[in-house]
């Protein structure tokens, strides 16, 4: 009986054809299960993105955003003005990132955002401590926090 080299290598001879068939059948079934598991995992993760978007914006998960900043429309407008003046060059006019990162949905506390604005990061972002006082930085934080 003629066998391909591969079949001979796998089965070791014609007497083991049954084993070979079982093995190929097992591999095919395993492939289908693998395809199913990969699709469910990937699809599930992507489907969960939308509910997670809602859940993650609950105060429990955002740390409450409770820095005492009341995000009034005036404060947000003031923050937007400071942003256009000092931040848009690097972070983009829409704050979706350019040279600097996207500032939407930041997963850091208000205090950390304020500290970043005040102190900057060496070789990456300048410090704005001399340009802006605490009230202006609070407005910027409120504006950045409002970016969803």
């Amino acid at each position, binding site marked *: 009986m003629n066998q391909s080299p*591969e079949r001979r290598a796998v089965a070791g001879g014609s007497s083991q054809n049954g084993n070979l068939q079982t093995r190929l059948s097992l*591999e095919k079934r395993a492939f289908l299960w693998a395809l199913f598991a*990969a699709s469910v995992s990937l699809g599930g993760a992507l489907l969960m993105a939308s509910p997670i978007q809602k859940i993650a914006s609950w105060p429990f*998960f955002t740390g409450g955003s409770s820095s005492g900043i009341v995000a009034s429309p005036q404060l947000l407008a003031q923050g937007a003005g400071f942003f256009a003046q000092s931040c848009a060059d690097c972070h983009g006019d829409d704050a*979706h*990132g350019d040279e600097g990162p*996207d500032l939407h949905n930041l997963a*850091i506390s208000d205090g*950390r955002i304020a500290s970043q604005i005040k102190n900057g990061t060496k070789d990456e972002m300048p410090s704005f401590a001399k340009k802006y006082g605490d009230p202006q930085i609070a407005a910027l934080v409120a504006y950045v926090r409002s970016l969803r």
Partner: protein
Amino acid sequence: MSIDPTLWPKLHGASTHFPVALAMAAALFEGLGALWPKSSPRKAQLHAAGYFTILLGALGTFPAVLSGLFMTKGRALGHDAELFHHLFVWPAFALLVGLGVWRALVGEKASPRGFAIYLTVLLITAGLMAGAGYWGGELILNS
């Protein structure tokens, strides 16, 4: 009452390195196992190591993906480095889960052709995981 908002980045950082490292280790073990002489007992040991590392790697993707989704507040793609990170992550995630399931079910009974396909896909997956890790690092360093 609320949780620390930096919890998700911390959890993602803590969980994400396992699947990256395990996928690459599995590719290494299985690749070496394929090259090792058949007569040596080391061949079976390398395949056994590859078997367990791919299973652990596949399991490890779930906490990494979940914490990542919470960290980005459900953003599945994003922009710039985050977009590149996700373009590597999603196919790598699906492939790693699929490879883990296939390897778990087939075990030592893989045909040479089946194993060659598995190894090729595993090497691609390890490359994708490395790319995801690289862009994840870029995200951390540039934000």
